[in-house]
């Protein structure tokens, strides 16, 4: 049985490049490039591997401003079959609850064309860092929920069963889930492939479907900021620790510098002279 996967991808500011203005303490957003959320690329890869093995199709779905088309085009370059961009001013300001509301409606429409077996997301986005969209979609669409997958063990497409390992703090567990399922994928789950040139060329001509709120079945009140229970009440720079004592090793010697620091630690009650402690 061929598998139809919907992969959710988000275009995010590259937070590794975000800087704080030391004078104003504000976020420097200017010039921060937008990238595909890196975890979502692992989700795409997971879908591609399942398709390699079992056949089927992959639909990429994103919600964001029109520029998010860039990310979808990159995903198409990996050989994804179809791409849908949810874009509408009504979606703006959505928290994760309002986001999953709109995404779920879009997935229902995609499923109307072709039944969906898997909804695959990255474990979290690097800008929001919440990890709430995958589980949220599982609940809204009544899918089996398997999150933080570190290894996809097997898929029995005929029986409609998927097995996956997920990483916990104290170990890892193997879960078995009935399809349709919602999966979230961690970076250790796979290595992202190097897309082939023909796929990349083909992607540049492929159409990206753009849906607004009128293209999906939604109520205006549940969308965007209006449909979001949370509000950001304040944004501020993290408090900074005070700069301490700086020792220039070249002024004395490495040994003297090390001894000086060990003395300071001893003054604060931290010693390591109790044998092999």
């Amino acid at each position, binding site marked *: 049985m061929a598998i139809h996967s919907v992969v959710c991808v988000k275009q995010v500011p590259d937070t590794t490049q975000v800087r704080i203005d030391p004078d104003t303490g504000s976020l420097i957003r200017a010039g921060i*490039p937008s990238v595909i959320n890196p975890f979502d690329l692992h989700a795409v890869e997971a879908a591609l591997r399942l398709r390699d093995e079992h056949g089927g199709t992959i639909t990429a779905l994103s919600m964001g401003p029109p520029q998010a088309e860039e990310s979808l085009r990159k995903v198409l370059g990996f050989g994804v079959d179809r791409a849908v961009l949810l874009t509408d001013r009504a979606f703006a300001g959505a928290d994760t609850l309002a986001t999953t509301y709109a995404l779920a409606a879009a997935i229902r429409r995609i499923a109307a064309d072709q039944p969906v077996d898997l909804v695959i997301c990255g474990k979290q986005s690097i800008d929001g860092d919440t990890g709430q969209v995958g589980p949220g979609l599982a609940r809204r669409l009544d899918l089996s929920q398997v999150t933080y997958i570190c290894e996809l063990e097997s898929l029995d497409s005929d029986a409609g069963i998927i097995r996956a390992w997920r990483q916990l703090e104290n170990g890892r567990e193997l879960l078995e889930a009935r399809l349709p399922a919602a999966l979230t994928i961690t970076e250790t789950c796979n290595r992202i492939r190097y897309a082939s040139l023909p796929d*990349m060329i083909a992607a540049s001509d492929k159409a990206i479907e753009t849906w607004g709120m009128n293209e999906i079945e939604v109520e205006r009140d549940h969308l965007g900021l209006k449909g979001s229970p949370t509000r950001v009440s304040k944004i501020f720079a993290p408090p900074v620790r005070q700069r301490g004592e700086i020792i220039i090793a070249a002024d004395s010697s490495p040994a003297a510098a090390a001894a000086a620091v060990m003395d300071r630690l001893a003054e604060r009650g931290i010693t390591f002279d109790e044998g092999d402690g």
Partner: protein
Amino acid sequence: MNLGDRKPVDGNFDAIVVGGGPAGLSATYTLAGGGARVALIERGDWPGSKNMMGGLIFSQPTSEVVPGFWKQAPLERPVTRREMWLTTGDSVLKAAYESDDFGAEPYNSFTVFRSRFDKWLAGEARAKGAVIITETLVEDLLWENGRVVGVRTSRPEGDLEADAVIIAEGVNPFLTEKAGLSRGVKADSMALAVKEVLALPKEKIEDRFNLNEGTGAAYEVVGEITGGTPGTGFIYTNKDTVSIGVGIILKDLVTRAGAAYALLERFKAQPQVQRLIAGASPREYTAHLIPEGGYQGMPRLYGNGVLVAGDAASMVNAVNTEGANLALLSGRMAAQTVLRAMDCGSFESLTLSHYGDLLNNSLVIKDLKQYQKVTPFLSSHPHFFSLYPELASAVLKEFLTVDSLSKADKLHLITRLVRSQQPTKKLLKDLYDTWKALS
């Protein structure tokens, strides 16, 4: 060449352009605009992400490629004042040319960030129908019967064929060498430029550089930019950042076992400079080579099925910071040549020699030929600008105004200008020497 098991992708491309810098993008835009099916292959995440320049683009050549570009392109500031600082030892001689005309259409020049400008230009090329392939390194050329027929990339199934390949790979001419066109790279013809982008509030920039709101300044510093070391420095104003950098001939750098960033630190610490950038916080550090071999350093510019444009073709006017201009224009001419070749149905060297004709008749080559005679800097004439300020202004205006006149034509113009003011013999000599050095 035996392609082995790798079956080249037949994307039915008329042309492949290697490299998403000013030369490659100008070529791609022109080809797509001319109805060719063209693929641009760029190794960075987006065209521009690997690119670096001081930060000045000129209106005239850019609008030859994209008319009225200033209406949409991501620009920093239109430059209304250019200053030239001549430094010898502790002293600095400054000459400024300021024009409000430069702040209005069609403008003279803008400060830009390559990473953003090139991304925009790639978008324009895509809108014209070009295929833009990023994150893909071209490793080699494909040959058939002594003719370039495509490129080999590092991607799976990564061979791609086309009738013509325009190499716009930038200053490190890997492919140009593989095409057998390069004459090799010499340390005395390469300059290393390092630059920092420093954040400074708009108002501070306008105040310190004495600018009207929204307009910009470009300072070129030549001579001994730091104690005893020859090099060039530059300071450009952007919207809310200042670009500051130094360039030094690699040979000089290596001979002295020096470090370019150390030079930049010393340049920044000079009181004249420090005043401008005090309190600014760093945003980016970049390094790039500039091919300063000029006309002498140019490779063969075309072969069977292949053309070379921009930095890869050593098309840089070292003194006047005009690499991007020449890149844009040469890329455009390479594209025009390919469009013509498409009409003829032949992509042999003979047909592509049209590229050479276009270049030779343009200011690109005229200027580069002029620069063959460049002598080391005009430190022997430090009095020039101070003695003849009015003339200096006129000279600077002509020198700094980039238009379709080649530098040789301008020399005539300036000579007439100077004569009309009944100069002394000495002045003429000074002027002439200065021109030899500056142009």
